């Protein structure tokens, strides 16, 4: 049995599955239920200074895809709307009741040293395992000079991180906003400020849809809408890239991966691209805390099957294979191959290739059954057909024998090539 325990930047947990700072971790009641369900840790819903913020009614927008609900969700909620002392008291009790679980406290106070100096000892007194700095919230708080307003300015990130390291002994995780052109800039700033880890991504600035009857962006509040933070399965690819980029460039900086994680496989992918722990929000909000059972058993079974003994064995495994486009082998080729016995004759591969790719799939009129065939010479190996085919395993991409290795850096078409092609 694989060992799922982690020591993430000095924070220990029985498994890498944490609930991200959000409504699921807003109060003791939820967190206790989460721990009973098996979650390895939580990042408590972001605390701020009193008086607490006020939330609107009608808070989430969502989009589904092809009959599936919540492919993506956005929210216009703010940080916790409960008094600070109430949260701190509950955090203390929960941590006492669940000493083996990670309890990290998310914080967002004004960008002033005094504010941080005031709140950090209060949090430390609860016995919490660490803090996460919410530099990501893209709505409501940024207008007040907090959240993404800080996260988008690397110098502020560095400054606030330094204050936190100065006024507390707790591990500091800096949560990054994706609403920025180069994710490395705030990550580097966090490291310069002494951060123990980064976590990402926070939500993406978005509008999920427009109510076309009333002409209001969703979710509507009394006839008006505002942009919100996008999350859920749809954002996973964006998050994965950002995680991978930090892992590749800032070696040794622990990363807590967040964004669209709904099952063990998503989690394993984040681990492979450099995460040491993962955080989940939307999937739990969609299905409840019980989803962690399959996350734990699925990850464990997969690790056993692959021979990975512990999470560290997985973390970063795919990072060395995440390269710049310039390092890809242009001489390599793969060709689509259709299994005629599995094919159900929907014609989707044909029309996709015919109309939008390379005219490499033709219908063979054999009378009885309609057979689609790949014309090897025309196929460029783009994978499109294998992605549209509704039958799993029906279209496979078959790598062709290639003798040479030729990157763009070496390619004769590149006026700035650095080397002759290797033979």
């Amino acid at each position, binding site marked *: 049995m694989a060992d799922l325990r982690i020591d993430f930047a000095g924070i220990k947990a029985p498994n890498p599955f944490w609930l991200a700072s959000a409504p699921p971790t807003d109060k003791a009641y939820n967190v206790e239920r989460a721990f009973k369900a098996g979650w390895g840790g939580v990042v408590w819903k972001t605390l701020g200074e009193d008086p607490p913020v006020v939330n609107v009614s009608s808070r989430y927008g969502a989009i589904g895809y*092809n*009959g*599936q609900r919540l492919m993506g969700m956005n929210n216009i909620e703010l940080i916790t709307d409960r008094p600070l002392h109430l949260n701190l008291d509950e955090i203390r009790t929960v941590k006492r009741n669940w000493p083996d679980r990670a309890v990290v406290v998310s914080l967002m106070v004004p960008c002033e040293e005094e504010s941080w100096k005031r709140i950090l000892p209060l949090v430390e007194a609860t016995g919490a395992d660490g803090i996460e700095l919410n530099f990501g919230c893209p709505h409501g708080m940024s207008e007040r000079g907090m959240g993404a307003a800080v996260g988008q300015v690397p110098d502020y990130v560095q400054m606030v991180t330094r204050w936190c390291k100065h006024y507390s002994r707790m591990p500091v995780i800096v949560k990054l906003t994706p609403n920025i052109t180069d994710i490395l800039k705030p990550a580097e700033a966090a490291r310069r400020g002494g951060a123990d880890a980064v976590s990402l991504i926070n939500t993406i600035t978005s509008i999920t849809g427009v109510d076309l009857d009333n002409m209001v962006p969703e979710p509507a509040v009394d006839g008006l809408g505002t942009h919100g933070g996008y999350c859920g399965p749809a954002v996973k690819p964006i998050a994965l890239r950002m995680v991978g980029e930090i892992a590749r460039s800032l070696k040794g900086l622990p990363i807590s991966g967040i964004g669209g994680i709904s099952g063990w496989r998503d989690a394993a992918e984040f681990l492979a691209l450099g995460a040491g722990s993962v955080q989940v929000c939307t999937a739990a909000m969609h299905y409840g805390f019980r989803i962690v059972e399959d996350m734990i058993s699925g990850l464990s079974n997969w690790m056993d099957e692959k021979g990975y003994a512990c999470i560290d064995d997985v973390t970063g495994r795919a990072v060395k294979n995440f390269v710049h486009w310039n390092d890809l082998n242009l001489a390599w080729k793969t060709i689509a191959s259709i299994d005629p016995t599995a094919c*159900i*004759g*929907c*014609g*989707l591969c*044909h*029309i996709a290739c015919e109309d939008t790719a390379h005219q490499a799939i033709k*219908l063979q009129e054999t009378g009885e059954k*309609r057979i689609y065939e790949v014309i090897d010479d025309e196929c460029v190996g783009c994978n499109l057909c294998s992605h549209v085919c*509704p*039958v799993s395993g029906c279209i496979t991409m078959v790598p062709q024998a290639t003798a040479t290795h030729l990157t763009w850096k070496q390619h004769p078409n590149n006026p700035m090539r650095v080397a002759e092609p290797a033979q």
Partner: protein
Amino acid sequence: MSATGDSVYNLGGGDIAASRVPVARLAECFADAHPLLSRDEAAIEAARCYFCYDAPCIAACPTSIDIPGFIRAIATDNLAGAGRKILEANILGGACARVCPTEILCEGACVRTAQQHKPVEIGALQRVATDAAMARAAASGQHPFTRAPSTGKRVAILGAGPAGLACAHELAKQGHAVAIFDAKPKPGGLNEYGIAAYKMADDFAAREVAFIISIGGIKIIPNQALGRELDLGTLRRDYDAVCLAIGQSGVKALAIPGEELQGVMDAVRFIENLRQSSDKSDVPVGRHVVVIGGGNTAIDAAVQAKRLGAEQVSLVYRRGREDMPATAVEQDWALVNGVDFRHWAAPVALEGQGAVQRIRFARTKLEDGRLVLGEDGYILRADMVLKAVGQSLEISEDEALPAIRAGRIVVNEDLQTSLPGVFAGGDCIPGQDLTVQAVADGKRAAQSINAYMKGELNG
């Protein structure tokens, strides 16, 4: 003699009565067997469609409805677009959604059948779109299609069933004036008088006729039969073209002794009676019913007899289960409704005094591919015998009529008969006797008639 002894020695007979079942139960039994999908059901089902290219389901639909197209429109919540797509190809899309044996048509060809033995429920989705389209038309008083400017041409159609109505609508759309003559008091053909009540519940058939003729330019004249009030020669003289869409309203006889006994009925007449009854409480049914035949009509008669409260319904077919013209789905439907199937037996005599009491069967078998009667057999008790051994063309042989072969009007590819300017379609010509095929024929006949009247049709 005791009551039990009585029924053993005297096989009864004549026990035919209405209201065997309380009215409320009858209402349930004859309500929609497959009610309209809810919005969520439709969305989930529509999402199962792969939006195939050159889709096999379209090829399997006699009217070539753009099935992936209309299902995608349902999925995107474009119900108006979905309805229009269907009705463009098949103006009786609503009736077809209810009555098509989809298992041998579109759904049988659906790639999901190949993949998971569970096709996309095309018929049910079609109903979602067409019901909405018809409701919209009724509410707004606006027909979804507009007529071309009047051409001044006049066409007579004989028969207001699916074939005649589809033909009329297409002709009206082209700007021609259409008169439909029908032998019956109500239009709709078998949609009104023949389809099982639980397939076409409430007054759908009448509403659909009203919807179709709301395009304008179509006049329906009831109680006018060719060979009775009308003759083809006069019609050909008075109109620019004529279309025969008279179906198969004759019924075949068993041609065995005792057929004249009370309680022996044609299944189509039994169903017609039932369809015309508002709450079914006045429809008489036997206590013991025997249905002869193996097609849709036999199945429908048997199931509806059972639902009216017959105690025992036996369906006897002269060949095996797999030989039955009724689809497997239809057969299963009869089985779950408690109909007792008997195969490999043919009726040889109906017996009783005044009213039928029993029916005598001989076992059948195949000898060199030919069906023959065996020596032995059995007797079934029967208060009512429903004959469903096929229908036939019902027009008196007349020199003015077009050529008829094997009981069907002879037509060419353009659905032209042997007489110039006379076309035919639906059950009265060769081909499968299905509502959707009748619609396809009607539409094609209209296209030919249009071409003919413009002088563009050869032949």
